[in-house]
C-alpha cells in the first residue's frame, strides 16, 4: 500500500463515524438532487419520443373539410397518412365541472397517430368510450366508470372501457380538449347532425424536420381550418418537465454548493485538529504532496461513496418526480444511467477536491517546529481583530463570542457561506412559491384574464353577447377564435379577439393593449421566435386570410410557449367565436358559471376557469423538501462548526470561568458567535437569493414563453424576517452546542486538551 493511501486509510479509521457519515451524507444529498433534477429534465424527452415512434410518427395533424383532407393524402411531403377521421366536439363532466372534449372515431391501429391503449380495450359498440389517459388519471376516471358527455346540447352517458394516449396535441390539463375515442356507430349516435361532425387527417412526413414548413404551406390552403405540427405538441408536452427538472437541478446545485462549503469547513477544522499529527508525519519524511494526497484521498473515498449512494437515491426517486408525463403515460420505470453516475461522481469529486486541497495545502505548510512545540497557529487571533472588538465596547460574552468567530476567518466564512447558501435557497424557494401563487391567483398572468368560458360551438353568438352584456354578474367579456397562422414558412397560434379585449385585463408587459383592427399584441415566445419587437409590422396568414398587423404590445402568455399573436376579430369576418371568455364582477368562477348556465340555458356549455393545485402541490412540496435539505445540511454544519470551535476554545472558556464567567455567559458567548455567523449568512444570502431567484425565474418564464420579469419576490414578511431569523437560528445553534461545555466544571475546562 502506498504511503499516501496508507495515510488516507489511517485518516478514515481515525475519523469519528458520525463525522465520516456526515461527509458522505452531504455528498449523497448533493448527488441525489442533481441526478434527480437531470433525470426529470432528460427522461421526459425519450419517453415522449418513444411513444411518438410507437404511434407511427404523427408529424402533422390537419383539420379541415373532408374532401380537402382526402385530397391532401397524396401530398408529396407525406410518407403515410391515416384515413380522414371524423370527430365531434362536446363537453364531458369531469370532477365538479366539465371539460371540452374531442370525440374521435378510432383510426386503424397501424396508421400514423393512432392512439395508444394504456388500459382496457377499444370500444366495440355505441355506448362505450376510451377515455383520455391524462384526464382519466387527473380526474380519477377508471375503466367501467360511466361518464356524461354533451354534444351540441344532447347529453349521453358512455361506459369507459379503456384509456389511451393520443399525440395530436399536448396532454390535459395543459391542453384541452381532452380526447375520447368511440366506434363510428357511437360517434353517429352522439352527433347525428352532420354539421356537428368535423374531420382531421394525421400524417407522417418524409422529412420530420420539415413539419413546421409543411404546416405553414398547408395551413394557408383553402378548406384547411388548422394544422398542428408535432414539434409544437412535443414542446408543450415537455414544458412542465423542463421547468420542474430545471428547478430540481438548480436546487441540486444549491445542495452541492452548501456541501462544498460544509466539506471545506469540516476539512479546515479537522486539519487544524490534526496539525500535530501532520507535523509528525512530516518529521518522519512525508512530503507535502503525500500529505495533501492522503487527506484528499480520505475525503474522496467518503465523497465517492456518498455520490454513488446519492446517484442511486436520485435514480430511484426520479420517476416519482415526473409531473406532467406521468399522468398521461404512467410512471416510468427506473432508468439506470451510468452517464449520470459519472456526472454525479465527477461533480462531487471536483467540489470535494477543491474544498479539501486548499485547507490541506495550508495545513501541510505549517512550520513543523511551531506545531511540535504547540505554538498557536499563526493565523489565529490577529491583533487588529482584538483591537477592533475593544473599540466596539461590547459585553464580555459578546466580545469573546465575536472574537472567536473572527479569529478563524476562513472557517467562519465557510460556515457562514454554507448557511448563506441555505438562506439563498429558502429565498429562491419562497420566490418560486410566491410566483406560483401569483399565477394561480391571477390567471391573467398566464394569458387567461377570465373566470369562465362559454363555448362558442352551437350557440348564437349575437344572443350570447347580448345576454352577457346584460348580466349584472358579468364585469366584462371578450371572444376568441383560434387559427393556426403562418409567418413565412412557420406556423403559430393566431387568436382573433372580439368584444372588449382592452378591458379584459390581459397583463401588458410592454406597449399598449389591443384596441382596433390592424393592431396586434403578442406573447414573448412569438416575438422571440420570429425576432420581432413591439412596433414591428407582420404579414401573416390566419387560415386562408392574409393579415397585416402592427404589434402594439406584448402581453403575458404561457399557452403554446407564448407563441401567440392576438388581433381584432373584425379582421376575420364571418368567423364564429370558439368561446366567450367572461370575467366576474365579484364572486367565484364557479358562481359565475352557475349564473351563466342559468341565463344561457342548459344547452350552452359553460366552464369555470380551473387551476391545477395537485401538480402545484408536488412542485411546492419538492421545493420545500429541497430548500429544507439545504437548510438541514447547513444547520448541521453550523452546529458542527460551532461545536468544534467551542471545544477548541474549551480551555479559554475555562479561563473565563475562573475570571467569573457564569454558565449563562458561557452560553451567551457561543450564542453571540452563532448569531454573528447567522447574521452574516442572512445579510449575504438574502441579496444573493434574490438575484439568483430573478435569474432563475426569468430563465424559467422565458423558457415557457412568458418572458422575463413575471416573477414575484418572496413575501415581505419572509424578506424582513430572513436576517433576524438567520441570526436567531445561529444564536440558538450556538447556545445548543455549548450547553454541555457550559455544564462542565471549570476545573475540567482549564485542563481541557
Amino acid at each position, binding site marked *: 500500500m502506498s504511503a499516501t493511501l496508507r495515510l488516507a486509510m489511517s485518516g478514515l479509521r481515525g475519523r469519528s463515524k458520525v463525522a465520516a457519515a456526515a461527509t458522505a451524507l452531504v455528498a449523497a444529498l448533493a448527488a441525489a438532487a442533481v441526478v434527480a433534477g437531470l433525470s426529470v429534465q432528460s427522461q421526459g424527452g425519450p419517453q415522449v419520443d418513444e411513444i411518438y415512434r410507437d404511434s407511427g410518427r404523427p408529424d402533422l395533424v390537419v383539420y379541415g373539410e373532408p374532401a380537402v383532407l382526402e385530397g391532401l393524402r397524396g401530398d408529396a411531403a407525406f410518407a403515410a397518412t391515416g384515413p380522414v377521421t371524423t370527430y365531434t366536439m362536446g363537453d364531458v363532466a369531469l370532477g365538479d365541472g366539465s371539460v371540452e372534449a374531442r370525440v374521435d372515431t378510432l383510426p386503424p391501429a397501424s396508421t400514423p397517430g393512432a392512439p395508444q391503449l394504456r388500459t382496457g380495450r377499444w370500444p366495440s359498440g355505441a355506448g362505450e368510450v376510451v377515455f383520455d389517459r391524462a384526464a382519466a388519471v387527473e380526474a380519477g376516471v377508471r375503466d367501467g366508470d360511466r361518464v356524461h358527455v354533451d354534444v351540441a346540447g344532447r347529453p349521453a352517458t358512455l361506459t369507459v372501457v379503456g384509456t389511451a394516449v393520443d399525440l395530436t396535441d399536448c396532454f390535459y390539463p395543459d391542453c384541452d380538449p381532452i380526447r375520447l375515442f368511440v366506434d363510428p356507430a357511437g360517434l353517429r349516435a352522439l352527433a347525428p347532425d352532420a354539421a356537428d361532425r368535423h374531420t382531421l387527417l394525421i400524417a407522417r412526413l418524409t422529412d420530420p424536420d420539415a413539419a413546421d414548413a409543411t404546416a405553414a404551406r398547408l395551413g394557408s390552403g383553402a378548406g384547411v381550418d388548422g394544422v398542428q405540427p408535432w414539434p409544437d405538441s412535443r414542446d408543450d408536452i415537455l414544458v412542465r418537465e423542463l421547468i420542474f427538472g430545471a428547478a430540481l437541478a438548480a436546487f441540486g446545485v444549491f445542495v452541492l454548493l452548501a456541501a462544498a462549503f460544509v466539506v471545506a469547513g469540516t476539512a479546515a477544522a479537522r486539519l487544524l485538529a490534526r496539525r500535530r499529527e501532520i507535523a509528525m508525519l512530516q518529521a518522519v519524511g512525508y512530503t507535502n504532496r503525500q500529505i495533501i494526497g492522503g487527506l484528499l484521498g480520505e475525503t474522496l473515498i467518503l465523497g465517492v461513496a456518498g455520490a454513488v449512494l446519492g446517484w442511486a437515491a436520485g435514480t430511484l426517486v426520479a420517476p416519482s418526480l415526473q409531473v406532467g408525463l406521468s399522468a398521461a403515460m404512467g410512471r416510468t420505470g427506473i432508468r439506470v444511467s451510468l452517464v449520470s453516475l459519472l456526472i454525479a461522481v465527477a461533480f462531487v469529486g471536483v467540489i470535494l477536491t477543491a474544498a479539501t486541497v486548499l485547507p490541506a495545502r495550508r495545513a501541510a505548510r505549517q512550520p513543523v517546529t511551531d506545531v511540535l512545540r504547540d505554538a498557536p497557529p499563526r493565523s489565529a487571533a490577529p491583533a487588529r481583530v482584538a483591537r477592533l472588538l475593544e473599540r466596539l465596547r461590547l459585553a464580555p460574552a459578546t466580545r469573546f463570542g465575536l472574537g472567536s468567530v473572527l479569529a478563524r476567518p476562513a472557517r467562519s466564512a465557510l460556515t457562514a457561506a454554507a448557511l448563506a447558501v441555505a438562506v439563498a435557497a429558502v429565498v429562491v424557494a419562497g420566490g418560486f412559491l410566491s410566483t406560483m401563487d401569483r399565477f394561480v391567483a391571477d390567471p391573467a398572468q398566464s394569458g387567461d384574464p377570465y373566470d369562465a368560458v362559454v363555448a362558442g360551438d352551437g350557440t348564437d353568438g349575437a344572443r350570447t353577447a347580448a345576454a352577457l352584456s346584460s348580466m349584472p354578474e358579468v364585469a366584462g367579456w371578450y371572444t376568441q377564435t383560434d387559427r393556426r397562422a403562418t409567418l413565412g414558412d412557420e406556423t403559430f397560434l393566431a387568436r382573433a379577439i372580439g368584444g372588449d379585449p382592452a378591458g379584459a385585463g390581459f397583463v401588458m408587459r410592454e406597449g399598449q393593449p389591443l384596441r382596433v383592427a390592424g393592431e396586434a399584441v403578442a406573447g414573448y415566445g412569438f416575438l422571440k421566435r420570429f425576432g420581432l419587437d413591439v412596433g414591428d409590422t407582420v404579414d401573416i396568414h390566419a387560415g386562408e386570410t392574409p393579415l397585416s398587423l402592427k404589434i402594439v404590445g406584448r402581453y403575458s402568455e404561457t399557452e403554446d410557449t407564448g407563441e401567440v399573436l392576438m388581433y381584432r376579430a373584425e379582421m376575420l369576418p364571418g368567423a364564429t367565436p370558439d368561446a366567450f371568455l367572461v370575467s366576474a364582477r365579484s364572486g367565484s368562477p364557479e358562481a359565475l358559471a352557475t349564473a351563466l348556465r342559468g341565463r344561457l340555458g342548459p344547452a350552452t356549455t359553460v366552464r369555470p376557469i380551473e387551476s391545477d393545485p395537485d401538480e402545484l402541490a408536488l412542485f411546492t412540496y419538492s421545493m420545500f423538501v429541497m430548500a429544507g435539505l439545504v437548510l438541514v445540511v447547513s444547520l448541521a454544519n453550523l452546529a458542527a462548526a460551532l461545536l468544534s470551535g467551542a471545544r477548541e476554545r474549551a480551555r479559554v472558556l475555562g479561563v473565563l470561568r475562573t475570571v467569573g464567567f457564569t454558565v449563562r455567559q458561557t452560553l451567551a458567548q457561543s450564542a453571540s458567535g452563532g448569531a454573528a455567523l447567522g447574521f452574516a449568512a442572512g445579510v449575504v444570502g438574502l441579496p444573493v437569493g434574490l438575484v439568483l431567484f430573478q435569474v432563475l425565474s426569468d430563465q424559467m418564464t422565458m423558457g415557457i414563453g412568458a418572458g422575463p420579469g413575471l416573477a414575484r419576490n418572496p413575501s415581505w414578511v419572509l424578506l424582513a424576517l430572513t436576517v433576524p431569523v438567520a441570526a436567531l437560528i445561529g444564536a440558538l445553534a450556538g447556545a445548543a452546542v455549548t450547553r454541555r461545555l457550559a455544564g462542565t466544571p471549570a476545573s475540567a475546562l*482549564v485542563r481541557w486538551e
Partner: protein
Amino acid sequence: MTESLLRASALTRTYRGGAREHAALRDVSLTVAPGDWVAITGPSGCGKSTLLHLLGGLDRPDSGEVWLAGSRLDDRDESGRALLRRRHVGFVFQFLNLVPTMTVIGNVELPLVLQGVGRREARSRSLAVLEELGVGDAADSAPAELSGGQQQRVALARAVVHGPDVLLADEPTGALDSASADVVLDLLRRRHDSGQSIVLVTHDHRVAAAADRVVTMLDGEIVDERDLTGTKDRPTYANLINLEG
C-alpha cells in the same frame, strides 16, 4: 486567633473514568488567613491542582466543605461559584492564561467589567496594574504578540486588578525561563508584601520557599506542613530540606 479567609475541611475528590477510580484528594483540610502566602507542593498527580481548583470553586468536592470570605462555596452551582469567584478570587495558571481574541487591556479589565465597574475606570485601573507589572506598553497588543513572561505578567495583572481576597496560582512560573520566573516571583512577593493573600501550587522548591507556609502533598493527602516565616534569611526551601535532611 486570626479569622480564616479560605477554609477547606475534610475534602475528598475522586475522579472516575469508566471502571477506574482515582482518589485525587483524601480528607484534606487547609486554612488560609488574610495575608497568608501558602505554597502547595508535591510530585505530579499528588492532588495539588485539584485542591487549588476546589479552593477556587472551579470544582466541587465529593465531600467536605470550602468556605471563602465567610461564604460556603462548595454547595453553590456553577454560576453561584462563578459570582463568588468573580469578587474574591484571582487565578493564574501555568500557560494559556489569556483570551487570545482580546487585547492585553481587554483581558485585564475583564474581571472589573464583569463586576460592573465602568469602562473608563476599568481601563484606568487596568492600565495602572499593567504599568506596575511592567507591561503597560503592551496594553493594546494581542496576547500572541507577547513573550511567555510578558503573558504571565498580564495574567497576574488580570488576577489582581479587582483586588481579590486571595490569589490562586497554579504553577505560575512552570512554563517560564528562570529570568522570567524570577520576575513573576518578584511580582508575587511585592503583591504579598502589600497584603495580598496567595495560594500557590508549584513543583519548584525555590518558588515554594518564597511562601510563608509550605504544604506538601503526596497521593492526595497533606503529608507535611511547615511555616517558613521564622526561617532566618528565608533560604530556599530546597536548601532547607537539604539542611534538615
